[in-house]
């Protein structure tokens, strides 16, 4: 399982799983766009390169998500395939591939932002997990 949605009264919250921290980054991005619209159908389009840094890994995770949200607004597209090229010293190099939807509305749920609320990437027996709250 890449992620699961967990109850949150006002907004949307997900628990994201990954064998590694880079996988947490990829799966968190998948979770966000999966909540926004249908990204399992349709065809793939351009690849965007993203390079960002932050003071710590958790902050970097949220900024990666908010960077993708902005790019999604700018290109009027959703993203569906994510690949972390490198994640070292709180510097991220990654790619995201745009998705052209088959039909209907592109975005069904508007996400205003990924929040820093109660953010902690935790080590588990099988890898890592983190809970992220999105403002909707």
């Amino acid at each position, binding site marked *: 399982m890449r992620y699961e949605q967990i109850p949150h*009264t006002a907004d*949307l919250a997900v628990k994201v799983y990954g064998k590694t921290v880079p996988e947490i980054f990829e799966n968190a991005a998948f979770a966000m766009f999966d909540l926004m619209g249908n990204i399992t159908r349709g065809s793939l389009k351009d690849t965007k390169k993203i390079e960002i840094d932050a003071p710590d890994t958790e902050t970097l995770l949220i900024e990666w998500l908010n960077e993708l949200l902005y790019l999604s*607004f700018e290109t009027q597209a959703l993203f569906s395939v994510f690949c972390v090229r490198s994640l070292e010293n709180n510097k991220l190099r990654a790619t995201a591939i745009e998705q052209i939807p088959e039909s209907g509305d592109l975005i069904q749920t508007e996400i205003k932002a990924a929040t820093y609320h109660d953010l902690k990437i935790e080590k588990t027996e099988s890898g890592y997990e983190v809970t992220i709250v999105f403002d909707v």
Partner: protein
Amino acid sequence: MGHAFAGRFEKIDDYRWKIPMTYMPGMRVPGIIFSDEKMLKDIIKDNAPQQVANAAHLPGIVRASMAMPDIHWGYGLPIGGVVATDIESGGVVSPGAVGYDINCGVRLMRTNLYEKDVMPYIKELVTALFSKVPTGVGSTGKINVNYREEKNILVKGAEWAVRKGYGCEEDLEYCEEGGAIKGADPSQISDRAYQRGRSQPGTLGSGNHFLEVQVVDEIYRKETAKVFGIEKGQIAIMIHTGSRGFGHQVCSDYSASMVRLLAKFNIEIPDRQLSCAPVASEEGKNYLGAMRCAANYAWANRQVIMHLTREVFESVFKENAASLGMRLIYDVAHNIAKIEGYNINGKIKDLCVHRKGATRAFPPGHKDIPRRYRETGQPVIIPGDMGRCSYLLAGTQSAEETFYSTCHGAGRLLSRTLAKKMTRSREISQELADKGIIVRCTGRETLNEEVSDAYKNVTDVVNIVQGAGISIKIAKLRPIGVIKG
């Protein structure tokens, strides 16, 4: 999620519950939740009381970390949170304590029409409003502004809209801050925020934002209602929206930069979403300059939507808006930080009052409310859910204890996911039609997420703020037509 509220409330009186400073190390003041015993049971199920305690750690906080009865779990500060910091003693401003939808707010417009005048046309009206007012996720309108024009919106707010022909001069007098808060600094706005703001003035958006045609269902104080311009049976229009993608981007930009400032200012807080900087620092001032731009954008947005509404009524009733008596009663912000003066230990201090899902409610006689309302107190507009009712309240002198703040709406009870699950087999628009409410909505799932059962009963919420003395009920309004994103 982690940090569930594990403490106990100390009862102060029937409407005030205290989280003592001993609950958590580092709390600078206690937490106070305005609620009755019944509603407290729902509140405690949620994580929100923990967020009240977290906010009590903010440097410079005075009196208490407060929450209104519509409190529910948010991020950083809970929804319904009120926090004031003393600027002179290092008080901070926190973008997460304002929220992403800066100056999300509500306006209420009266008309000379009565229910019987409107009922024969209600379907036509709702359809026309739905086609005229852009709604839905990422909705864009007919207005597309260039950089220079957008800068004008950021400084002039609702006045920009009026100058462009969307409304009249008198509308400005009936907005909080006259529809444009001073101190907006467009040089603090990122290119990204400018980009996101270009095509969205005059758009409603999605989620809990709405435009409703309502009937005044009950009057509680006749004299005040008369001053506000309403009586039983009359038609009013309520508009609930904010600063759209522009405001979200401003909050994202400044939340990111403030996370990086915690070490610089040596600030320790239990939740990164409460990242902040001293109001008096350059960084604090920059955020406030940017936040005010977003606030002004929202006032322009609601002004344009109100104008579009007037145009729809003009075309349906073949009469101009002035003769239909379509006058703005008031426009309030419920996600904002303001600098206001209060008496703290015998001295008037400039405080940075954060209201996140809370409404300013100035008392009778206050210099910053329109002359018309000097004797009644400020009109306070409390939207409920689409299937029940909304309220019009007035500010009171005793709300000084909450920095003249009161509730902002019903407050959610169920998550969106649970609401959708519970209503899977229900036809919400038909249920509403059976109750005499015509609804049009862009999003397929919005109506299910926004179903009445997902909200606290707004009547309970306003009864608590009235019981606590922090505002008084003037009128109840019932929806007959709703458009949503």
